[in-house]
């Protein structure tokens, strides 16, 4: 397939409460971010200025509408809160809804580190949350 572009909603965030076996879609998301950053190690001396790459820190941040009584097969903010309380190591995937040649899929494991729920007058209940990646992230390209 030729070079192509995708919209944000062409990708979905999935998590697996059991750590990387059966992934379920997180609903109802409005957006999510994947952040990856390499720490700077300053090895500069009188001889020369040197910056080396350090450890990689990765997080996934997302926000969505809170769903209640959603049944099995999907992960809501309610489910995620239970996982965070249990300090469960989860598997995660950022995957195209319908992968085509050249599309990238990221996956790994991590912990839910925060959930913020918002209840405002005349607005739907919403939540924001983030996953801190534990271990390496794997990126695969659809062939």
């Amino acid at each position, binding site marked *: 397939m030729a070079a192509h572009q995708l919209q*944000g*909603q062409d990708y*979905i965030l999935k998590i697996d409460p059991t750590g990387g076996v059966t992934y379920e*879609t997180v*609903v*109802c*998301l*409005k*957006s999510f971010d994947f952040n990856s950053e390499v720490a700077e190690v300053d090895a500069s001396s009188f001889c020369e200025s040197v910056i080396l790459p350090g450890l990689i820190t990765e997080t996934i941040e997302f926000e*969505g*509408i809170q769903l209640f009584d959603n049944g099995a097969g999907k992960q809501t903010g309610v489910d995620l809160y239970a996982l965070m309380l249990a300090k469960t190591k989860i598997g995660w995937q950022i995957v195209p809804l319908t992968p085509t040649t050249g599309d990238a899929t990221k996956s790994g494991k991590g912990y839910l580190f925060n959930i913020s729920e918002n209840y405002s*007058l*005349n*607005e*739907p209940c919403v939540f924001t949350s983030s996953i801190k990646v534990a271990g390496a992230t794997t990126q695969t390209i659809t062939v």
Partner: protein
Amino acid sequence: MKSVNYKLREAYVTAFAGFAVNAITVPIYYLELPQGEEVDNYIILSEVGNSESGTMDRHGTDITMQLAVYTVQQYGNSGKFADEICNAIFQLIYPTPTSVLSFASDFQMVGMKLTRDSSENLSTEGNDYFANRLLTFEHKIFIK
């Protein structure tokens, strides 16, 4: 995506069935007063506007609906009856902060709010005095 406009109009018409204030019937219409209708006090639904507010896997919309309240009295109109109609509207469809209108299975209203409430200047035509008030509600709707 599904259009909620007609369903919202239906929900309003259903809610206002038999609507009366001070024992005076106040009918509700869409866009205009039908030809041949001769009523002094009525409500017109109009100015429908949508703004998409869905999620990544579910459509949603913030939809506005204007309720224009029209009253006419002879030899003067203090606007009292228009205000009484508006009060009755609030009691009917927005009695509590969590009030919503009921929908069929395709839509779910999760909240509504009054975004505009204004009175028009008194106008006259012969002995008829017109006092009108415009209410605009915004509804947050999930599309199933």
